């Protein structure tokens, strides 16, 4: 691991400097994570009086639990949908902005600020806009003959949470694509223009391939966001309903552990999620190192 070619010689000082960070890490991260792993092999009786070692039974139960399988399916729709929508829109906005000379800073400011809004707050605002009785969007949809009701219709509920979760993420992706586009050497674009490539062709044959590391990075980041950071969006709007149609994995861990008090199952679900996060992080680092360019 990298250091400086000369270093300070103190023996105790580095440990003292590291102490606060390591203490917090051990007490609030590693210890609870270890507890979750341990708990996932245990089962408590209904009164919490006795605990027995059940091995992998909690994990095996998950595979047979229709609610858990449903939650996996919901997440498999929700996370890619949020990623596609927010990365796609981010790219469209950044590519549009890249064309402009005048006004680009104003547009950038106007597109960036939603990143500051809490996911829960964004969720509530969209929930209000989609309110089946007084909301504006259901009113407009009724004009074209669609009866919107996210409290009864699973598809409507899913659309609502996907939009609400993607909303603030668009600004994030926009910023990264903008930085990526600015980093493309002008000479390359000019050479293509001299060879007669029009702006659309230039985008698809030069800018888009050169953006592939950014796109890949954002895909992973947004998947992680959609799987783990969208808890507030679900909690503040649908609460996983109707009929569990928006009950994503991270929300189910909370519901089963805190409200259902099913600690063993909740812990097993936690461990599954930790494995997913670690896998995504490793993929991200591997690919970022390799620099996806063709």
């Amino acid at each position, binding site marked *: 691991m990298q250091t*400086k070619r*000369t270093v*300070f010689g*103190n023996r105790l*000082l*580095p*440990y003292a400097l*590291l102490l*606060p*960070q*390591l203490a*917090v*890490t051990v007490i*609030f*991260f*590693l210890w*609870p*994570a270890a*507890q*979750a792993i341990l708990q996932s092999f245990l089962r408590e009786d209904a009164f919490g009086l006795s605990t027995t070692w059940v091995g992998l039974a909690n994990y095996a139960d998950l595979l047979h639990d229709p609610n858990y399988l449903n939650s996996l399916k919901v997440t498999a729709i929700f996370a890619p949908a949020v990623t596609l929508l927010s990365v796609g829109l981010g790219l*469209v*906005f950044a590519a*549009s*902005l890249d*064309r*402009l*000379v005048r006004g680009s800073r104003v547009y950038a*400011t106007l*597109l960036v*600020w939603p*990143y*500051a*809004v*809490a*996911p*829960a*707050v964004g969720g*509530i605002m969209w*929930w*209000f*806009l989609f*309110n089946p*009785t*007084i*909301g504006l969007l259901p009113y407009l949809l009724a004009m074209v003959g669609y009866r919107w009701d996210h409290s009864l219709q699973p598809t409507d509920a899913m659309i609502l949470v996907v939009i609400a979760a993607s*909303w603030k993420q668009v600004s*994030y992706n926009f*910023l990264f694509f903008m930085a990526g586009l600015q980093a493309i050497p002008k000479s390359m674009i000019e050479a293509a223009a001299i060879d007669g490539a029009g702006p659309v062709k230039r985008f698809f044959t030069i800018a888009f391939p050169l953006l592939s590391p950014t796109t890949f990075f954002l895909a992973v980041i947004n998947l992680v966001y959609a799987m*783990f*950071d969208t*808890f*507030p969006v679900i909690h*503040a709007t649908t609460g996983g309903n109707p009929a569990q149609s928006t009950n994503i994995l991270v929300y189910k861990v909370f519901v089963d*552990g*805190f409200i259902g008090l099913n600690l063993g199952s909740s*812990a097993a679900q*936690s461990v599954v*999620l*930790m494995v997913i*996060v670690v896998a995504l992080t490793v993929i991200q680092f591997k690919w970022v190192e390799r620099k996806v360019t063709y």
Partner: protein
Amino acid sequence: MIDRHPWLDALAHAVLIVGVLVVAFPVYVAVIASTHGPNDFMSGLIPLLPGSEMLANYRSMLTDGLSSSGAPPLGGMLWNSLVMALCIAFGKIVISILSAYAIVYFRFPFRAVAFWMIFITLMLPVEVRIVPTFKVVADLGLLDSYAGLTIPLIASATATFLFRQFFLTVPDELMEAARIDGAGPLKFFRDILLPLSRTNIAALFVILFIYGWNQYLWPMMITTTSSHYTIVMGIKRMSDVADALPQWNVVMTTVVLAMLPPVIVVVGMQRLFVKGLIETEK
């Protein structure tokens, strides 16, 4: 601009204008709703033009709260959010810069172990280990306190990485010169490294302030009495009244107040914000 395509420029403007409007629309509706009285939400359509109750809504929510849904005055909740956001931002910066300094400028046994332990925290979002973490905090007696709200969240792998990357780019000669002049490690840190890190600290501060302000699940778990509620988690309590329709005007008043401070920070310090965002994720 290499070649002129007026229709493409027009299209780009159109896309961006539509984008800005769509992105801003929910906020516009929330702001409008916060200027109306409760009766405007009983039936029909949500109002789209400003009403006359703005001052009354904000005044009553800031000072009295909404007793029917157990919401304390928003003034106190805003204060709690501010304390939480500032403590998390300062705490993360302080402990990260110290540990990055130790990792880059010293060689000692278990250095790699320490580095990887910090790295692991990056991988475990609080949501996936919420039950055991809650238990630790409860056992330590930190429920319903600012310490419980902030300390468990201040370990930060990202901030440590950022400072580590930055320290590695600082020329070695600076440290060698300082040593020849007789400066010890603490003096070098305070007089040379810290001033050099100023922009990085400021950029990180913007990101971390937003992160702290927008916490939702954690304050919801940790606070059991209204004295420590933060505003972002408090919105849910108001929109969630049992057997009744939410009082949209006051919910939206709260929404506006909850997003105003972080939005002001981002817009006011846009350059630092962009720098912080792009560098912490690299």
